[in-house]
């Protein structure tokens, strides 16, 4: 079957009745039979699973057809808290469904892996989004069985959750043959703060603040995704200037984080020079952001209805100066990176992710684009103001550490260009409108936003009183952590920190 003859998501949606009150993507309610048909369909069609979550007794999944950017949310009312698992046609669903089981007690049938995922047995309540029954947590986390790897001469290395450096907690279990890694399994959930449970019942303002704290380095992306979801649910149309200022902040966040990452990857192979200079450039971006938007990370600056702070002319000039200063200095660093053989020998060929895996898991961001997946939520499905801007999405095929660094380098250049374009074309006008009030009926919104790591998905349902009935946040790291496990296979243990840094997945965004 060729790509052209595959049925598109649009055709599929056209044949199914769409529910009202869900925007901007259609929501289709399925029954068990049609849900099973969807599972079979996913097995043959290249639709990307964007997320899977629950709302009450309903399980929802978001899918995207990359060919035309059509996306939809498909839902199924579960019978007896059980639903057929999507994991057989989309392995990325395994961890999502394990998390669903931990949070709500709803079980995916025929899920191969039913171990606890986010819940380590230390929460004071069981199934916080389900029964939320209080329980007496034990003094120690529940035991966890790691996947076995058997053979003569194999040994295990447990690493974390407490690490020697100041990073987030996560446990990595290596099974090694000498230095060669036979299997890596990561275990997460240590930074679970119950953000989705806190969201339930919160008003929109509090919800925006919570979303901005899901993963601190992506606070603009999360704020933007949440704001867009609220605006979709309520039918609020933010003023044009707000869209452009949001893009400006998002690009500044991307530049700052990519600069930090490029330096940090080099620092992991003891090349402190890149780290120091990238750190200086990152600091300049953060200072400019602090001066222009009143917060270095621009936290809580993107709000539902617009942005919380306007950019004055002086701020615009400052940002233009920043771009002009940054560009030649960044170029020198790129030349240093490219021209240091000892550095290149570490980066090239380390931690390769195969393009099939990236497609299968729907991994976004630099992880996907470094392994041939041409996907960027800014253009596909796309949101304002990016269709009006000149933007090329860099894509490489190699999938190794070097490719992930190169994607970041190319994206920094693109984002610098975008910052200039945005400031030059910034429309005048107000920057914020009040969020439209909701009436009775269904008010659900969904948004997909490209953060520096990849696509952030936010889905929410508002109650008639305007508070949040349910809000689900899906970090891009959900689909990147499993690929890290695949990337390290066959590499040596000593190269893991380098691979890990080149992925730079979020712990807190994933654990929520």
């Amino acid at each position: 079957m060729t790509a052209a003859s595959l049925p598109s998501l649009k055709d599929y949606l056209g044949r199914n009745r769409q529910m009202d009150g869900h925007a901007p993507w259609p929501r289709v309610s399925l029954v068990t039979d049609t849900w099973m048909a969807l599972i079979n369909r996913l097995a043959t069609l290249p639709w990307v699973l964007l997320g899977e979550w629950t709302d009450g007794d309903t399980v929802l999944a978001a899918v995207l057809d990359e060919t035309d950017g059509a996306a939809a949310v498909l839902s199924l009312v579960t019978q007896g808290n059980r639903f057929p698992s999507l994991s057989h046609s989309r392995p990325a669903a395994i961890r999502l469904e394990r998390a669903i089981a931990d949070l709500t007690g709803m079980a995916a049938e025929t899920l191969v892996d039913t171990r606890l995922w986010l819940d380590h047995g230390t929460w004071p309540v069981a199934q916080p989004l389900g029964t939320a029954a209080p329980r007496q947590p034990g003094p120690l986390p529940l035991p966890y069985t790691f996947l076995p790897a058997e053979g003569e001469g194999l040994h295990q290395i447990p690493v974390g959750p407490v690490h020697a450096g100041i990073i987030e907690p996560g446990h990595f279990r290596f099974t090694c043959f000498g230095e060669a890694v036979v299997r890596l399994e990561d275990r997460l959930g240590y930074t679970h703060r119950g953000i989705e449970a806190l969201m339930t019942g919160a008003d929109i303002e509090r919800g925006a603040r919570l979303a901005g704290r899901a993963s601190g380095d992506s606070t603009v992306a999360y704020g933007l995704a949440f704001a867009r979801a609220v605006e979709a649910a309520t039918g609020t149309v933010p003023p044009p200037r707000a869209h452009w200022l949001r893009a400006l902040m998002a690009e500044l966040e991307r530049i700052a984080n990519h600069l930090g990452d490029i330096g940090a990857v080099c620092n992991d192979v003891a090349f402190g020079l890149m780290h120091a200079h990238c750190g200086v450039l990152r600091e300049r971006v953060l200072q400019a952001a602090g001066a222009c938007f009143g917060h270095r990370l621009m936290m809580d600056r993107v709000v539902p209805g617009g942005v919380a702070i306007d950019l004055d002319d002086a701020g615009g000039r400052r940002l233009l100066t920043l771009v002009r200063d940054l560009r030649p200095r960044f170029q020198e660093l790129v030349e240093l990176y490219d021209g240091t053989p000892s550095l290149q020998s570490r980066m090239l060929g380390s931690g390769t992710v195969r393009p099939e895996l990236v497609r299968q898991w729907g991994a976004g961001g630099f992880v996907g684009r470094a392994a041939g997946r041409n996907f960027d939520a800014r253009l596909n499905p796309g949101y304002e103001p990016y269709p009006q801007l000149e933007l090329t999405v860099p894509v490489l095929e190699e999938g190794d550490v070097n490719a992930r660094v190169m994607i970041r380098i190319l994206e920094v250049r693109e984002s610098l260009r975008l910052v200039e374009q945005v400031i030059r074309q910034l429309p005048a006008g107000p920057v914020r409108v009040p969020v439209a009030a909701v009436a009775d009926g269904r008010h659900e919104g969904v948004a997909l936003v490209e953060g520096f790591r990849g696509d952030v998905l936010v889905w929410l349902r508002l109650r008639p009183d305007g508070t949040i009935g349910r809000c689900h946040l899906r970090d891009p790291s959900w689909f990147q952590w499993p690929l890290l496990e695949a990337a390290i296979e066959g590499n040596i243990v000593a190269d893991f920190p380098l691979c890990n840094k080149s992925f730079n997945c979020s712990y807190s965004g994933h654990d929520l």
Partner: protein
Amino acid sequence: MAIIQYLLLQGFQMLLVLAVAPLLIGIVRRVKARLLRRIGPSVFQPYRDLIRLARKDVVVAHNASWLFLVTPYIVFAAIWVAAALVPTYALGLIFSWSADIIVIVGLLALARFFQALAGLDVGTAFGGIGTSREMMIASLAEPAMLMIVFTLSLLAQSTQLSSIAHYMMTVQVGLRVSCGLALMGLVMVAIAENGRVPVDNPATHLELTMVHEAMILEYSGRHLALIELASALKLTLYLSMLVCVFVPWGMALTDAGPLALLVGVVLYPAKIAAGGAALALLEVTVAKMRVFRVVDFLNFALMLGLLAALLLFVSRSI
């Protein structure tokens, strides 16, 4: 009377290396920080760190054996004695006649042996990784080191460092290819033995990439202080050896007067500091190599040593 003077001079040398070692580490860190556009801590920070560690309680794993407890003392003692055998400010000190360069290599091997056993003793995964890597590096570094030692010994007709330095200072050696090769080889061995970039990164926080640091992860308090001081001494030892063989000028000859001794005492820390600065420069300009590339690196050092020795014969026969 003379024996007391000899002992005093030797005692001074032992204290000198002990006093200079943390300063050397401080200088390397400071220069590195400046090259990375940071201000960096004071060059005296390592002394403060050592005092802080010495005051702290020792935490020992439940399953640690006596080996774990005695290792810091053995490592420190062996390396200190070895460092005392390398001429620093004066030649012909009394100890230097009692042991030659092969004993120095042996003392370092002894220290490493105990360090490796202690790394395995507690049974943590990192200790095991660090030890296995350290042993891999050591098994390649030692032959290379001995090859270089042979070259120098053949040249000076002695395995005594004092005699080698004396030969270098007094005889017109000129620019010998063998010397150049031996110098390069010794520098490479020194980098590997001391766990510096590009072989190991002493400043890393990444457990999985560590070599030396992984072996000593379980140590704390005064034990850690001793091991840190021993590492500093080892770096000082290697730099002293490089300086004494290849830049011996300024060292007081055997039975020299007080003025020559004074010149030696002033020049020695300056030379060591310059060596430390050069090390910092090197560490800033290269990235760490893959663990298994260290094999090639040290094989290259061995080849250099071998070539140096061979060329010596060739040049003699002409």
